[in-house]
C-alpha cells in the first residue's frame, strides 16, 4: 500500500516552505535518458518537443520521482545566440565555436527574440505538452543559464576571465544583454507551464569565483535577474562548491540551491536552514558504477544529513545525470528514497 499522502507538487512546495512533507522529494534530473526510453538517438530525441515531453512523462512513471525536467541541453541558449551545437552519441550536446570571437563582438550583440528561435520554441512546446499531461500533479522545472555563467559558452572560459578582469565596461555590457535574454527566456518558460526555473550559475560557485569578486559580479547579476523572473527559482552551482557563499545566494531571492557532492551536506544544510532549500548532492559521475548497496547507502546518508525539518530535495550534484548512469542505479535511488525517505517513520 502506498504511504504517499501528497502529490509531488504538494511535497515539493511543503519542503520549499521548510516543513516536512510525507517523504523526502527527489528529482532525477534526467535529460538524455529519455532517448533510451523512446529507443532513439540523442539527436533524434531532441529534434521534437513531443519526444522530450513523452520521455519525461515515461521516466517519471518509471522511477516515481517528483518533477518533470523541461531542460533539453545547455547549448540550446547558445544556439539561440547564433552558435552551433555538436551532438554526441553518448553525452549531452556540446556548444561549438564561441559566438564571441573578440571582445569587440560584445558591442554588437543583440538579444535573441525567443519567438524567432526555433530551438527555444521547441523547449516551450515541450513544456506546454508536459503541463497538459501532468497538470498540477508534479512541478515542471525549466532551466536558464545565468547571465553571469552563459559567457563560458558564448566566449570560452579563459577569454571570459580575461574580460572580467581587464574590460569592466564590456563585461557590464555583456551582463546587460544576457540579463535581458535570461529574464525573457525564464518568463517564457513560466508562461508555457514551467512551475519553477533552475538558474544554472556555476561561475558563481566558490570553486570558480572568490567570494569578494562574486559579491561584486554574479551576486549583483543574480539579484537583478531573479527579481524580474515571475516565478520561483532554484540556483544550481552545477558541481561547484557553494558553502562560502550559500548565505549570499539565499539573499539573491532564490528558493533553493543545488550543491556539490564534494561538500559537507550537514554543514550546507545548517547554513541554509530556514533560508533556502538544499538540492543535492549525489555524485552523478561516480553513480555510473554504484552497486545497489552503495546506492542505498548514499541515498540514506544524504537523507540523514539534510532531510530533517524539510528544506531538502534529494538530487544529483550537477543538475544533469550522465547518459552512462544505468537504469538499475536510477531505480535503486528511487527504491532507497521510498525505503528511507518517509518522515513519519522517523
Amino acid at each position, binding site marked *: 500500500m502506498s504511504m504517499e499522502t501528497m502529490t509531488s507538487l504538494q511535497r515539493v512546495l511543503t519542503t520549499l516552505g521548510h516543513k516536512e512533507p510525507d517523504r523526502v522529494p527527489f528529482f532525477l534530473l534526467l535529460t538524455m535518458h529519455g532517448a533510451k526510453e523512446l529507443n532513439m538517438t540523442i539527436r533524434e530525441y531532441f529534434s521534437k518537443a513531443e519526444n522530450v515531453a513523452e520521455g519525461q512523462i515515461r521516466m517519471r512513471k518509471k522511477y516515481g520521482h517528483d518533477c518533470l525536467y523541461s531542460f533539453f541541453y545547455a547549448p540550446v541558449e547558445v544556439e539561440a545566440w547564433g552558435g552551433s551545437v555538436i551532438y554526441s552519441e553518448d553525452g549531452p550536446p556540446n556548444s561549438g565555436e564561441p559566438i564571441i570571437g573578440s571582445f569587440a563582438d560584445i558591442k554588437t550583440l543583440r538579444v535573441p527574440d525567443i519567438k524567432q528561435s526555433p530551438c527555444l520554441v521547441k523547449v516551450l512546446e515541450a513544456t506546454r505538452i508536459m503541463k497538459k499531461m501532468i497538470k498540477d500533479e508534479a512541478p515542471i522545472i525549466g532551466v536558464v543559464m545565468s547571465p553571469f555563467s552563459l559567457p563560458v559558452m558564448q566566449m570560452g572560459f579563459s577569454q571570459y576571465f580575461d574580460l572580467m578582469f581587464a574590460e569592466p565596461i564590456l563585461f557590464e555590457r555583456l551582463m546587460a544583454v544576457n540579463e535581458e535574454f535570461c529574464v525573457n527566456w525564464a518568463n517564457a518558460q513560466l508562461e508555457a507551464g514551467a512551475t519553477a526555473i533552475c538558474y544554472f550559475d556555476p561561475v558563481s560557485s566558490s570553486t570558480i569565483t572568490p567570494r569578494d569578486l562574486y559579491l561584486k559580479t554574479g551576486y549583483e547579476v543574480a539579484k537583478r535577474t531573479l527579481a524580474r523572473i515571475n516565478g520561483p527559482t532554484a540556483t544550481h552551482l552545477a558541481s561547484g562548491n557553494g*558553502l562560502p557563499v550559500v548565505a549570499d545566494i539565499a539573499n539573491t531571492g532564490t528558493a533553493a540551491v543545488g550543491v556539490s557532492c564534494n561538500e559537507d551536506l550537514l554543514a550546507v544544510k545548517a547554513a541554509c536552514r530556514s533560508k533556502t532549500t538544499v538540492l543535492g548532492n549525489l555524485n552523478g559521475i561516480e553513480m*555510473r558504477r554504484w552497486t545497489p548497496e552503495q546506492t542505498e547507502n548514499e541515498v540514506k546518508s544524504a537523507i540523514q544529513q539534510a532531510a530533517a525539518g524539510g528544506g531538502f530535495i534529494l538530487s544529483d550534484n550537477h543538475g544533469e545525470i550522465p547518459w552512462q548512469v544505468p537504469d538499475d542505479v536510477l531505480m535503486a535511488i528511487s527504491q532507497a528514497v521510498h525505503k528511507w525517505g518517509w518522515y513519519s517513520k522517523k
Partner: protein
Amino acid sequence: MKGRVGMNNLLSQDFEKALLDMDQRAATKILTQACEAVEPIVFVEQVVMPALEKIGDDWDKGLIALSQVYMSGRICERLVDTILPPASPNRTSQPAMAIAALNDYHSLGKTIIYSSLRASGYELLDLGRVGVDELVRQTIEHKLRIVLISVLMLPSALHVKQVVERLKQQKCKAKIVVGGAPFRFDQQLWQEVGADATGANIADALKVIHRIMEEMA
C-alpha cells in the same frame, strides 16, 4: 655575478599574494628586483613553482577559486617568458611532451596546466582541442613521451580509453596523464580508462612529470 642563493620566504609570500590579487604589476616588480640578485632559473624554481603549486593545492582545498588559479598561471607564464624565453638553455631538460583537450570545447584546465608548466620552466606542445584520431596521430608524429589530456565532460574522459588502446596498437609507449572534472569526481576513473597517472592540480602535474622522467631516465 648573480648567485643561486635562496629566495627568502617573505618574497615568496609577497609574490603569491600578488598572484592571488591578480596584480601583474606587483608580481613583475618582485621578479625584476629578485633577478637583479639571482639567476632567473633560481627565481622560477624557488618562487614561481612553489607559488603555483601552493595556489593549485589551495584550490583543491577549496580555499581559493579557479579564476585565481587561471590568472596566476597566465601572469607567471608571461613573466617567465620574459626571463626564460622558450629557447633558453636554462629551461628544464625534458622528454617530448604535449597537452590537449580531448573532444571538449572547454579548455580552461588545459590552459591552466599549460601556463603553469611553462612558467615552471617546461616546454610543451599545445595540441589544442583534438579528437581521438588526431591525438593519436600527433602523438606518433611528434614522438611524444608524455601526453597530458584535459577533459571536462564524462564522455570525453571515457574516450581516453580509445586513445590508450590505439597508441598501444601502434606500439607507442607515451605515458598518458589525465586531468579534469570527471577524474576529480570519480577517483577510480583514470585507472578505468587505462591512463598512467592523473593529477588534480599543477602540483600533481609536476610530481607526475618528475616521476615519469625518473622512470624514463
